[in-house]
């Protein structure tokens, strides 16, 4: 199937894959720095640059279709937009998200206005600038495909080279500063990378959705691990796979737009992570909750048995019965009596420990359901037991 797509489509797939990896890695640092949506402002701020570059090329006598020049124009206004976000959020009392929203809407609005100007320029109608809104890879020129593949490779190389200092800044800017990392410069470099990814992605994903490639893979990867470099690697992998699969899928049929397909593939990876990830995933959390619930019921049931109280709670009875601790009529088996006495003793020991400030860390760390002999040494238990016996002579 892939081989049947033709040389350009192959190049686009390679470009989309490289772009996806670069976006995933770069986006990780943006996400860890809690500035994910800055990418959205940068992306929307490319539109006026594209329009101005086109008008400039036409004014100089060209036909305005040179992708490289359009992308340079995009980068210039995107950088200007980034500066505006920075200026508004540091020099005025408006928050960063307000600055992002303002820059995003105003630059985009200005860009749309330029597009209507361009539509009235004689060669403007066929310029295909609309394709940069949502990405359009169908009928792409060979030179453009090469430009995207090379751009993706450069963005990827730069993000890998900078990943070490970017991790330090993302986690603890103060510590990074003391360790000799120039925080301001690294933040700027991160933003520069975001800008590069955005500009390279314009033709494939389009400026409205490119931010998704910067946000979704890192958020999905964050579910699987707490280790920053692993988040970056995983996000890069997810981004790369989304890019290749999405670009490949969209090349198979005419009405499958590339950008949205890539974004939806990435979103599928996010959904899988949200549900399946160990520890942070939804399924894992549900199982953990059920396990805890069982332990509490079992413990309360045993305590009730030990104190000779009747148990009415059906779920508790069923659990006890399944564990062979009570008979069907609710009377404790021999093993049940033993377990109940153990539970009572554990509970008394926990009570002593809770009253003793020396055990604070241990008590705070545990839920009070674990058997004491799995937590303390025999000596410590013996000491608690003497206090226990002393308290009730």
């Amino acid at each position, binding site marked *: 199937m892939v081989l049947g797509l033709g040389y350009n489509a192959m190049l686009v797939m390679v470009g989309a894959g490289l772009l996806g990896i670069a976006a995933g890695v770069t986006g990780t640092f943006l996400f860890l720095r809690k500035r994910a949506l800055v990418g959205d402002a940068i992306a929307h701020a490319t539109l006026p640059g594209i329009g101005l570059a086109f008008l400039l090329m036409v004014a100089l006598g060209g036909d305005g279709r040179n992708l490289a020049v359009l992308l340079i124009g995009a980068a210039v206004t995107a950088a200007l937009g980034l500066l505006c976000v920075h200026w508004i959020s540091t020099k005025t009392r408006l928050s960063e998200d307000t600055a992002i929203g303002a820059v995003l809407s*105003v630059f985009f609005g200005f860009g749309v206005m330029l597009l209507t100007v361009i539509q009235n320029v004689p060669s403007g109608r066929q310029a295909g600038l609309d394709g940069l809104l949502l990405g359009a890879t169908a009928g792409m020129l060979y030179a453009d495909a090469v430009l995207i593949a090379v751009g993706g490779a450069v963005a990827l190389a730069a993000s890998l080279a900078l990943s070490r200092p970017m991790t330090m800044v993302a986690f603890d800017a103060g510590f990074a500063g003391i360790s000799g990392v120039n925080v301001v410069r690294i933040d700027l470099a991160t933003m520069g990378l975001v800008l590069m990814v955005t500009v390279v992605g314009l033709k494939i994903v389009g400026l409205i959705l490119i931010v998704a490639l910067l946000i979704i893979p890192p958020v999905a990867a964050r579910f699987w691990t707490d280790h920053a470099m692993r988040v970056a690697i995983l996000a890069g992998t997810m981004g790369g796979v989304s890019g290749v699969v999405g670009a490949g899928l969209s090349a198979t049929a005419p009405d499958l737009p590339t950008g949205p397909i890539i974004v939806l593939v990435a979103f599928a990876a996010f959904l899988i992570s949200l549900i399946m990830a160990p520890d942070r995933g939804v399924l894992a959390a549900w199982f953990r909750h059920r396990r805890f619930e069982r332990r509490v019921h079992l413990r309360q049931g045993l305590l009730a048995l030990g104190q000779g109280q009747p148990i009415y709670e059906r779920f508790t009875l069923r659990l006890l019965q399944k564990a062979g601790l009570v008979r069907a009529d609710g009377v404790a088996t021999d093993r049940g009596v033993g377990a109940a006495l153990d539970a009572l003793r554990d509970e008394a020991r926990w009570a002593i420990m809770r009253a003793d400030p020396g055990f604070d860390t241990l008590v705070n760390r545990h839920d009070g359901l674990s058997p004491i002999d799995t937590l303390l040494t025999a000596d410590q238990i013996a000491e608690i037991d003497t206090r226990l016996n002393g308290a009730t002579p």
Partner: protein
Amino acid sequence: MSGQVFVALSLTPLLIGVLAAIACAVPGNFLLLRRQALIGDAISHVVLPGIVVAFLVTGRVSAWPMMLGAAAAAVVAVVLIEVIRRLGRIEPGAAMGVIFTAMFAGGVLLLEQSDTSNVHLDVEHALMGNLESLIWLDALGWTSLLDPRALAGLPPELTRLAVVTALVAVLTWLFWRPLKITTFDEGFAHGVGLPNTVIGLGLVILSAVAAVAAFDAVGSIIVIAMFICPPAAARLMTNRLETQVALSVLLAALSAILGYIFAGFGPLWLGFDNSVSAAGMIATVSGLMLLAAAIVGPHRRQT
């Protein structure tokens, strides 16, 4: 320009622009102060899948089902953002980014897959609106404002927006105190028994309704710009909420009027013979106002 041409061609787009700007700017003030400014951005993206689904269900382009679909999509998005924020312990900005881009991508895909070639429904229209085309053909001049037959020919967008703007104004007035208290002092609001979550969600739903009504007429650019720029500019000019809201309404109306005029006549003044997108120009004007406020606003610094 004669009264007849003005009333027929410019009066209704101007009014629609002003109403849309005001309907978005008023809730925008509270979103801004609650640090939820980008909710407007998220809502205006997810409106697209809502409209497309409504179109696929009903099979035609009619306003009310589409507005319902869009409002439903906005509520779904807000709930989803909250759900994944809690489940994944993700910061709100990133959670928002995941949901609105995915829903927008879904909307574009549905649009491309469905047969909408014979109806006027495309992504560009959704982004840019078509303010200029909302003209009042039945008008013969100022006297038409008193003529019931001509009034029946008013663009339906105008009526819908007037209703929604009135709704926004009335609700803001009714809930002024709870809104103000929950916005500025969550702890105190909790102490006096105000349901903070309900008020917050109500604000988001009201914003969604305003965004959808405005979106239908003027496209999503103006919606995002009006949610943020006029309130942000007003915030830099005053410390009183009452003054801020009043100023933001004024600035919103002013950007709509100036933007419309510049878009229609600006190019003519400069010697070109075609007008430019009014939606884009309105957003640009509001941005320039914010820039001016950021440079000279009396309360631009942190106090």
